[in-house]
């Protein structure tokens, strides 16, 4: 299954604003994407509560996974989003 390992780039971590932007993008993806930290249980990337509950901070490594048509493209987009600092004003 296609996966991407990304380091969270947002200065406040995967919280509030960055989480919202990421979750909305995941919900718009054509495939079901999961996100996990280390060996923990993967959770749906489009679930705001689950993504928040990861407690991912700036520098935390997260693993994205998806399967099906367009999975690679969706993962690339989401990985790029995670790597950016979404707290920055122009994000």
């Amino acid at each position, binding site marked *: 299954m296609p996966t991407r390992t990304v380091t969270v780039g947002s200065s406040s971590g995967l919280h*509030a604003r960055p989480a*919202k932007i990421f979750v909305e993008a995941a919900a718009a993806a054509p495939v079901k994407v999961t996100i996990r930290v280390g060996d923990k249980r993967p*959770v749906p990337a489009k*679930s*705001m*509560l*689950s993504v928040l509950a*990861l*407690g991912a901070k700036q520098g935390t490594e997260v693993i994205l996974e998806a399967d099906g048509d367009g999975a690679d493209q969706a993962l690339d987009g989401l990985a790029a989003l995670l790597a950016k600092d979404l707290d920055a004003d122009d994000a």
Partner: protein
Amino acid sequence: MPDATGLAGIGVSAGVAAGPLLRIAAAPALPPPVPVGDPEAEVRRAYAALAEVVADLERRADRATEATVAEVLRAEALMAGDEELRDAVREHIEDGTDAPHAIDAAFGTFREMFAEAGGYLAERVADLDDLRDRAVAVLLGLPMPGVPQPGHPYVLAARDLAPADTADLDPDQVVALVTEIGGPTSHTAILARALGLPAVVACPGVLRVAEHTRVLVDGATGRVDVGVDEATVVAARRDAAAEAAAVAGSSGPGRTSDGHAVKLLANVGSAKNVPAADQAHAEGIGLFRTELLFLDRASEPGRDEQITAYREVFRAMAGRRVVIRTLDAGADKPLPFLHQDGEPNPALGVRGLRVARRRPGVLTAQLAAIAAAAADCDADVWVMAPMVSTLTEATEFAAAVHEAGLPRAGVMIEVPAAALRAGDLLRAVDFLSIGTNDLSQYTFAADRMCGELADLLDPWQPALLQLIAICGAAGRETGKPVGVCGEAAADPQLAPVLAGLGISSLSMSPRALPAVRAALARHSYAECRRLAELAVAAPDAVAARKSVL
């Protein structure tokens, strides 16, 4: 006003407004569990409640004028509409739990995860509780908790306002605030003054007024008239508009109706605040706080950085007085570079000028920077120290100020010991400035941050006024200036009393200045002295306030 009845509270933010009264709804209590007959119908019921919460949050986000508030509301909507949450609700219902308890349990799971993650997420637990309360309220047919958004102007009533309630407070809809508890320093009072809304606190009975009853709120007198007719409302609005116009039209130096001068000064934290002071026709700066420069610093700000910051304010105030206060931090406001370990009682610890006992270099460096900045500006720079308690401290501080080449040294009166010896202190220094918030805290042994003791921190407390009177008398005797900076200086009704007590300047946030100027201009100096006598002689703060109306 045939059927109207009056309630009385403490007016904490002047102005008159009227409208239907609406309350902040309380969080709903979970009813006892009931057996589930039709799980599918129960799931639909629960989902519909969550969907209503999402829709409500999105409606409020659409209305929000501030981008940050809108974003927070939309993030909350995402949480309330979460698919995982809905799956968890469905599972609980299929296990035989009714909708309200299933929603409670589903939020409970995330609540635990958030609490475990700690830090930022632990703080978001309150958001989850709020979302749960909203969904449960919908299921029970109760109003959603929080500040109402009826889409028309109204008077907001509450037991007290929590900081969380206020993010959502729309000044276009809320025309006045009335709370059952609280005092002049409560969150409600501070917020109301910041928003320019009339407000009455400590108003018993307000929660028993039927919703949608038309009430008239007078934020100056503390009166709340219940069941007023339209004509009364119109008349009150007309009077309020006339008063507002008189205040807005006031300008020039502060003086009583017969010309006794009371300088009106502004409190600032940096040059950024100077335009507001100018707009209010401030005669100078009565309190330039220098803490801003030192906050969040691992090391002391350098000499050049300090000079630049001070000079910006001095330059902007050329030709006028600027009273600059040396670093007011320490145990109560810890700064990283001071490396102060936890003291058992920060308010009674090493703070203000006392920091110089441990770190004299911080003070001398600051005084040198102030002197350098003052040297190439035209401002009349006065320097004062916070938290002075004894003549020795005052004498040593004055010596340090003069040694730095600065002509005017003063001290703040924030502890009763200093107020009682104001005469002695004034022989050692050039002026006094009374910080009423701290002076109240130490006089009444009531922590400034303790909302429950807000009545003790009321600047109208006669014991506080008596200490101010001692300082004022010392000022008259020595011919040296004695000012007030702090919450009390911003109270228009208290201004004539303070003038009568011998206070020669009032320093406040620029926003408060026009109303204080107008209040002073309405009284002769003889009246001010009489009001001061009445207020000091009053048995309590409420009576003191009433005595001058």
